């Protein structure tokens, strides 16, 4: 391969690496803190914020309509104007001469439609930042601060309670329920998006970046989820919607109203949730006003299952109550026939169904998709078959401690780089510069690989990089020593470089492959710190193969041909 081709390959690799690295640069250096905070929020907070901003914008827009209907809308509404243009085109309407408030609103059917569009614009904006974060290098808990917990579902205790050992499907279901309960509760913290992952057979791993208050963990795993049936007040729900239409920001984050007199006593506002594609709770955007006191507690549920209605074939959930619960439920349902009833888990409305007739111990709920029926079944069962959760391991690290750690890691890295650089320069003279170019590129490639694979940067990862810096120079050293030997035999620059690289090739490969073997096994140990370290060691070894065997060689060859050099600056003894 000729030099130009090789140079192109190197440049291509560097360019691709930059592409991987760019989201990290943009997120950590170019995104303001408040935008970061917002984007890191849970889906619920994002939705909440988008709705809030959209309501404010709608109010501003309506003001324009009444005050200056003929003026062109200012730049703050540019996004909406763009959407309106698309809407005009889709509807086949003639484009207006000027984009006034009236003209824009003409593209939509009333306020609710505009509000939806505005909300979507806001949400897209926040999601864009969120995606950026997803593509950037992630900071581990030791650098960003936060909590991680490993929780075990106590299946043995459940088996004891049921009086028989659990079958495979029962175990799976129990785990599903445990995950569901955790998912539902953790979202309530709302500030940062948590990670909830199943680990092995009966473990669940939870990570909450940013927050490090161990008390919160206890509130997450304690208790079994409060499930209850509440009667929905349709009139009050309508009142609430009217109120929100005129007071867009009239509802607080804790679902109390700015003007509490809107709703009669004894009623509370709750949000209606659905599962999103990832199985996470997602607020549908709807509010439901329910009685504050539960109509029936979930503890009375004995069993629940999903099936198809024999006549209509529609999916339905069948549940059975205890005898005592049946009595209570009969009183409740017979008094409220025709009204909707809500299934509420931990203050979240999971399902709303109209009461057709009085129910005693056996009831069924229908009118939704199969997936929703499955979800509701799981929720009802969790009340019937509780799984106890036990903390297996827990770590919480304050965010400011993380800042310290980053500083330590960065210092160690810079000093290590400088020390190795100075040493190589003294020992190998000109060739030392070559080695350092290779090392700096190596560091750059390591970071971009980390970014490309969405790996997490932790202090052990940084330690791995620092160590790799020292060890990766080894490949250069092996090669340089070989080249020196060839020069000592009286070969010229070109021949010495060629022979030196050829002879050193397998020594470098063997050494690195064995190290990579060790690193890969290390990565299998699973838990955070070691894994991070091992992955960085493996990445460093691989990219150092590229920089030492390929890039260094190219630099020498350019020196030989373009610099018209016959000699080499590689040692104090050999001239």
């Amino acid at each position, binding site marked *: 391969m000729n030099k130009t081709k090789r140079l192109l390959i190197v440049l291509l690799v560097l360019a691709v690496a930059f592409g991987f690295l760019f989201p990290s640069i943009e997120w950590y250096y170019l995104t303001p803190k408040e935008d970061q905070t917002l984007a890191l929020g849970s889906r619920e*907070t994002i939705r*909440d914020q988008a709705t*809030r901003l959209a309501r404010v914008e709608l109010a501003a827009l309506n003001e324009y309509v009444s005050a200056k209907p003929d003026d062109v809308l200012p730049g703050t509404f540019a996004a909406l104007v763009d959407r309106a243009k698309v809407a005009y085109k889709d509807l086949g309407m003639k484009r207006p001469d000027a984009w006034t408030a009236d003209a824009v609103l003409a593209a939509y059917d009333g306020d609710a439609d505009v509000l939806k569009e505005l909300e979507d614009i806001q949400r897209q904006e926040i999601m864009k930042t969120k995606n950026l974060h997803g593509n950037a290098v992630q900071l581990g808990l030791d650098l960003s601060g936060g909590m991680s917990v490993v929780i075990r579902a106590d299946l043995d205790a459940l088996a004891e309670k049921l009086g028989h050992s659990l079958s495979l499907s029962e175990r799976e279901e129990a785990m599903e329920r445990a995950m569901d309960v955790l998912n539902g509760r953790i979202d309530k913290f709302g500030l940062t998006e948590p990670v909830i992952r199943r680990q092995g057979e009966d473990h669940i791993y939870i990570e909450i970046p940013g927050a490090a208050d161990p008390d919160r963990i206890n509130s997450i795993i304690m208790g079994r989820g409060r499930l209850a049936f509440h009667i929905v007040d349709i009139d009050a729900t309508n009142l609430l919607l009217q109120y929100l239409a005129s007071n867009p920001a009239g509802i607080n984050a804790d679902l109390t109203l700015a003007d509490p007199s809107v709703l009669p006593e004894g009623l509370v506002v709750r949000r209606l949730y659905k599962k999103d594609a990832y199985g996470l709770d997602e607020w549908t955007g709807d509010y439901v006003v329910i009685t504050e006191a539960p109509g029936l507690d979930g503890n009375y549920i004995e069993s629940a299952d999903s099936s198809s209605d024999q006549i209509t074939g529609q999916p339905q959930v069948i549940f059975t109550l205890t005898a005592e619960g049946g009595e209570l439920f009969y009183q409740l349902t017979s008094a409220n026939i025709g009204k909707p009833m809500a299934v509420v888990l931990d203050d979240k409305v999971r399902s709303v169904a109209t009461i057709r007739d009085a129910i005693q111990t056996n009831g069924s709920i229908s009118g939704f998709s199969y997936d929703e029926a499955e979800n509701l079944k799981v929720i009802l069962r969790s009340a019937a078959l509780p799984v106890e959760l036990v903390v297996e391991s827990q770590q919480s690290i304050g965010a400011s401690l993380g800042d310290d750690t980053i500083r330590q890691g960065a210092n160690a890295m810079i000093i*290590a780089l400088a020390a190795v650089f100075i040493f190589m320069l003294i020992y190998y003279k000109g060739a030392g510069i070559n080695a350092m170019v290779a090392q700096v590129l190596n560091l750059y490639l390591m970071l971009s690989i980390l970014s490309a694979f969405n790996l997490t940067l932790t202090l052990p990862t940084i330690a791995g990089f620092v160590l790799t810096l020292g*060890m990766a120079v080894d490949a250069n050293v092996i090669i340089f020593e070989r080249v020196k030997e060839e020069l000592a035999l009286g070969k010229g620059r070109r021949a010495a470089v060629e022979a030196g690289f050829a002879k050193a090739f397998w020594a470098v490969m*063997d*050494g690195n492959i064995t190290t990579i073997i060790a690193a890969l096994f290390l990565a299998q*140990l699973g838990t955070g710190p070691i894994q991070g370290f091992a992955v960085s060691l493996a990445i460093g070894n691989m990219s150092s193969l590229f920089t030492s065997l390929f890039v260094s060689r190219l630099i020498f060859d350019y020196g030989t041909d373009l610099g018209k050099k016959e000699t080499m600056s590689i040692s104090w003894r050999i001239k």
Partner: protein
Amino acid sequence: MKRLIKFHKAFLPATLVSVALLAFSVLGLFVKGFNLGVDFQAGINQYVRLAYPTGTVTYSGPGTPRLEINDDTAAVVFTGTESSDRTASWDLATVGTLADLAAAMKAEGVDVSLSDGAGYSAELLLPTFQGDYILSAQPTMIHRMPRGADERLGSVEEIRQALTGLGNVTVQAVGAEGSGEFIVRVRDDGTDKNFSAKVPEQITLALDGVFGAGRTVAVKTDYVGPRFSQSLAQNVVWLTLLTLGGILLYAGIRFKFQFATGAVLAVVHDGLIMAGFMIWTGMEFGTTSIAAILTILGYSINDTIVIFDRIREDHKLSPTDSMTTIIDRSISETLGRTVITTVTTLLAVLALFLFTTGSIKDFALALIVGIISGTYSTIFIASGFVAWWDKMRVSRHAKLNAGTEVQAH
């Protein structure tokens, strides 16, 4: 041509030294044992900091601002407000006294009521260890560090006294002298299911009782339950064996069997030396220690393979030379590389050792020991084994030859 050093002469004494060191390591295992960290011994590591409550922060405007204090800045990030989101931050070194900071925060709509130390420098403000504070009408307490020697809070002995009721407790002072930072370790014997939830609370309660209400700030909590530590220990054993197996296999394919064995022997030697070092220095043995040992496995093997590569090459170039001559020559030829690589790696690890704290510092120290041992074992143990094997083979061969000669007669 480079000068030839007769390394083979040192093989026997080196082996004796190594055997003595290894015996010393194993002795330590029985006499002293590992200082098992929280990873391997169920329990809780609670990092606490004793500090003075200096006041409360409240906020009653719209949105949910978060207060974030670190070593040199305090910042309030406003989000969820109807107007645009923003961040207000103050440099603790230049803002002046705590009262000045309170006034500056007031201007942003955040109320700070100071109860203590208003005239002290804002730099004494304690960072928000437990994550950012979410400000609301509910008062949030902020702390400041002790100002001088007379304000210093607590000693290891006092804390141990205060916590005797919790069972098996160890206390260790960390950080700068008088900074009031301590690690409290309480062992979990597995009898209480709610151990992880209860103990941090009990620690705070007990310390507050002795040093004054609100003076205990939890910085970091690590908890590992009994089952978890057990499965980790099993994993580690398997992992080490698999790693060694993997290396043996690769080296066995690329080189001859005796080379692979020599390399693995050298690596096991390094691991044991490091373990001995950790035992005798009382360094905490946790997952990071395992990582250090496994790293040295990789490093040492790399070192060894480079020399073996040269031995194989030299053997091909002059097949008639005796193995000891070839080994001496190969080690001499690669000595420059061995030394330089050791120096550069040591430089990097030294930087790590000097600029980090806590478990990574220990990690770096263990690596320094491992690197030195790894370089030594590469030359004397791995190559020594190959030389010894060859000598055995030659003498066995000679005996066999002698036997056939007898029969021929």
